[in-house]
């Protein structure tokens, strides 16, 4: 099946359209079935994917607006492959664990459309198609937060939408300028990313364009100081919204850096290493401290998300194979772990309708299964060895060590601070005597919740022990990208930086 990517993109959308006809009572089963088929298709993609090939595979190209250089151009490589699978997986698991009953049909349809946009972003190889899915993903999320969220939901959803929208419009100007430069040099209009890769731009152009793309991506990541929309969005979103937001939507930003900024502007990227590393370290440490100060479990996880996204950013700008592969791996691990944590918070919220830590205590004795799974996920979030969180974090730090040992040490404190606030959450909510009467009668995980969480636990441990099947394709594509960047870089510093990386390759 050569056109499996198109199927992956449009299957959920068609299913969403047909979903309008499905009866309300059956909508949930319908959604889960569709998401399961989608996951199956994405796994099929993985099996038919050639791991040895570092380039784009399953490429499809249909010219849409040839006069303007826009075409339906999609493909997948090792970097995007696993993010696609993760998006399909988290949509399925999110739907399975969903406890919402109000307007369930609308929710299912919205989620299916959201799935289309998410997969579309990661397979797009044409900047306009990328932008199209990127912007379109805001609309379902706006609806999910706004319709099923907490008391401040409207404010949170609009803030989410406008922040991202404003940033991406600046990115759009960057894209248009890029197309213009391409047109000037070649006489042809093209928005294909692979065509743009071939351009060697003067450094000042690179810097301006890097800045334009940076706005779009940094707001999405979200990087300090553009992160303020995220705690609101998480705080107000329903569980499913938080799961998808943390697991997949945030990854769009970091993916954008890997797909656009690095290969297109290698010199600018190397020049920006220090500023971005500083911002990332501020993100890592500052938001970890803010997380510690939170009273609400969900807010702790929301801020810890920002902190982990800082690690991912740091890895991307390490400019070497360990760092970038580690970052991509960390995107997956953060997606699964934070998604699971948000689901776990959702579980307790459904039972008690509060997320405040002070309301809990001693849950371990009342809900043992819940406590075990929460504990495993928490450890994975902290980056305990033999969990999925360790692999990515370790590789990122290893990679960045070659750039700057001091900054790496600073970033490494994130593991310590992370352990502090995560364990504090665990201690306050799960250990000690059950002080609150309402907690004594809490039910442990039911079958639905267990079955949606256990697969995630298995993945966390499997990839923590044996990450190779995932890491290898990622590493191949990343290395190919680095070789390409090295050839393309024009300043000496950039060449050195990327060369250093190449000579020290190997370990993974």
């Amino acid at each position, binding site marked *: 099946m050569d056109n499996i990517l198109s199927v992956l993109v449009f299957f959920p959308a068609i299913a969403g359209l047909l979903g309008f006809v499905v009866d309300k009572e059956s909508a949930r089963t319908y959604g889960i079935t569709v998401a399961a088929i989608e996951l199956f298709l994405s796994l099929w993609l993985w099996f038919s994917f050639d791991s040895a090939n570092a380039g784009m595979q399953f490429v499809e190209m249909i010219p*849409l*607006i*040839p*006069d*303007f250089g826009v075409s339906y151009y999609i493909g997948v490589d090792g970097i995007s492959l696993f993010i696609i699978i993760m998006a399909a997986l988290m949509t399925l698991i999110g739907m399975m664990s969903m406890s919402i009953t109000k307007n369930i049909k609308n929710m299912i349809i919205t989620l299916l459309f959201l799935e289309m946009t998410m997969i579309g972003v990661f397979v797009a190889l044409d900047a*306009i198609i990328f*932008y*199209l899915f990127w*912007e*379109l993903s*805001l*609309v379902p999320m*706006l*609806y999910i937060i*706004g*319709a099923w969220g907490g008391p401040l*939901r*409207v404010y949170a*959803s*609009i803030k989410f*939408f*406008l922040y991202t*929208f*404003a940033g991406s*419009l*600046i990115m*759009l*100007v960057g894209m*248009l*300028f890029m*197309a*213009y430069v391409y*047109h000037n040099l070649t006489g042809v209009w093209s928005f294909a990313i692979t065509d743009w890769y071939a351009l060697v731009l003067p450094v000042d152009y690179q810097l301006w364009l890097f800045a334009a793309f940076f706005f779009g991506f940094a707001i999405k990541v979200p990087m300090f100081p553009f992160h303020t929309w995220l705690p609101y969005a998480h705080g107000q979103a329903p569980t499913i919204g938080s799961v998808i937001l943390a697991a997949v939507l945030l990854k769009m930003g970091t993916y954008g850096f890997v797909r656009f900024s690095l290969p297109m502007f290698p010199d600018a990227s190397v020049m920006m290493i220090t500023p971005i590393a500083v911002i990332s370290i501020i993100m890592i440490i500052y938001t970890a401290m803010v997380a510690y100060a939170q009273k609400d479990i969900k807010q702790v996880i929301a801020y810890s998300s920002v902190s982990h996204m800082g690690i991912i950013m740091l890895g991307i700008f390490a400019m070497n194979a360990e760092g970038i592969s580690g970052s991509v791996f960390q995107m997956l691990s953060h997606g699964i772990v934070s998604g699971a944590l948000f689901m776990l918070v959702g579980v307790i919220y459904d039972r008690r309708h509060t997320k405040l830590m002070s309301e809990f205590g001693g849950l371990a004795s009342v809900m043992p299964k819940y406590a075990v799974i929460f504990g495993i996920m928490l450890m994975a979030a902290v980056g305990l060895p033999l969990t999925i969180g360790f692999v990515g974090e370790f590789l990122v730090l290893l990679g960045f060590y070659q750039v700057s040992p001091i900054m790496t040490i600073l970033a490494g404190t994130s593991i310590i601070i992370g352990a502090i606030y995560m364990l504090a959450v665990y201690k306050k909510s799960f250990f000690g005597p059950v002080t609150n009467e309402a907690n004594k009668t809490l039910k442990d995980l039911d079958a639905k919740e267990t079955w949606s969480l256990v697969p995630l636990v298995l993945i966390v441990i499997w990839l923590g022990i044996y990450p190779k099947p995932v890491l290898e394709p990622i590493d191949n594509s990343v290395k190919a990208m680095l070789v390409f960047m090295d050839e393309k870089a024009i300043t000496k510093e950039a060449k050195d930086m990327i060369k250093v990386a190449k000579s020290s390759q190997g370990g993974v």
Partner: protein
Amino acid sequence: MLQPINVSLESLNLITLAPMLIAIAGGLVILVLDLISEKLHKSLYVMLTILILVIDFGATLGLNVNERGFFDVMLIDGISIISQLMIIVGSIIFIPLALTSKRFHEYSYPEFFALFLFMIAGFQFMVASDNLILIFVGLETASLSLYTLIALHNRANSYEAAVKYFTMGALAAAFFAMGSAVVYALTGSVELYKVAEVMATRLNETGIMIAIFGSAVLLLVAFSFKLSLFPFHTWAPDVYEGASAPLAGYMSVVPKIAAFVVSIRIFGMYIDLGVEWVRVTILVLAVLTMTLANIMALVQEDVKRMLAYSSISHAGFIMAALALDTTEGTTAIFLYYALFMFTNLGAFAMLWISRHKNRRFDKRFDHPYEKFAGFIHIMPVGAVIMGLFMLSLAGVPPFSVFWGKIYVMQAAVNSGYIWLAIVMGLNSAIAAYYYLKLIVYMFLMDPVKDVDTIYYNLSKPLMAVIGMATLATVGAIFYIQPLISYLYYMISASGY
């Protein structure tokens, strides 16, 4: 003794007049029908009007590019053909909106339809000439008919709107006349191609710049009124509010296309002559218009007024493309309006289906945001469609206006105005807020009043129009390519 002038019929090239004459004859036919029988239903007039417009469309499509006719005052070039086609298509979408399920009395007068056709003829004259006098005649024919159409809506604020529009229109006409007079004084001609030739030879004379400045400013003021550019936009929201919703939507598109074509001819000439500050002035006006109208739209409590300000802002957007004076910029103007037309008319039509005889929600406004609260529960399909229109207006891909927006922005980038593209981008972000506000009301709030108040006016023809507008909005990605290549071809063929 005056010599008798011999004119051969062939040199008149009367075929260039055919489209306008068809519209005028059609209007007369409708009046004659009314003489013969008084009790004819509006549906007859609506269908007749559509048929006449279809013939008009065919006649326009059949014209040859780059011809002159009728003592060389008619100019049939690429932009005149595409603008006439767009005017006719816009009118064909508009006129079935008269077939509401409730009776609105303006449509029971055949005069409404006759005036409507005369107005179209006026617009066609405006765009199909480069003679300032004929442009003026066309402009006045169209405007006077339009004032009457607004007033026919027969409510206190419709009269207010008509009178306001009339006064402003008269002022604009005066500016136009004075501007033309100055141009004539400078060059001894009112034909723009001759004006350009003479002006080009006189550009280096000392002291002439002030006169050129004067003529350009007077003309710019006249067209700023017509295009509702800041600071001459103040009439627009009141007039849109007073006019019936479909007419307001119509006014935000069709008359502006006509005015833009004339602006392209006049100000394009100034920019081509190297009078750089005309470009600067237009750019400043455009940026101010899009920004201030956006900010005003943020605080509106009425959806129709919001849409009025939003269309002012869109006009500013397009005005910026005019200042670029490149083939791409000009293509962008037409592309933008071709796409904007469907979406905006669709959005106004959605307001139209919810229009009441009396105001049930608010003493002051017909369409306060509260009216649309919980629309998704009352009329799910309607809410989704309105939501699509709003997203399209906000410039969310892949809906129609997005493609217009990126084309304008690309044209700006190509001419080296990157700051302009960024300003446009930021303005789109501001604009997203007020479009979202309506979406939030429709999707995220609970209804405040009983159910029938929303789709009060719905009828099959209205559904058909809205459905068509929706298809055009959603499916834009599939017809952009032929549209762009056709527009680009026609525009470059006529040398803009």
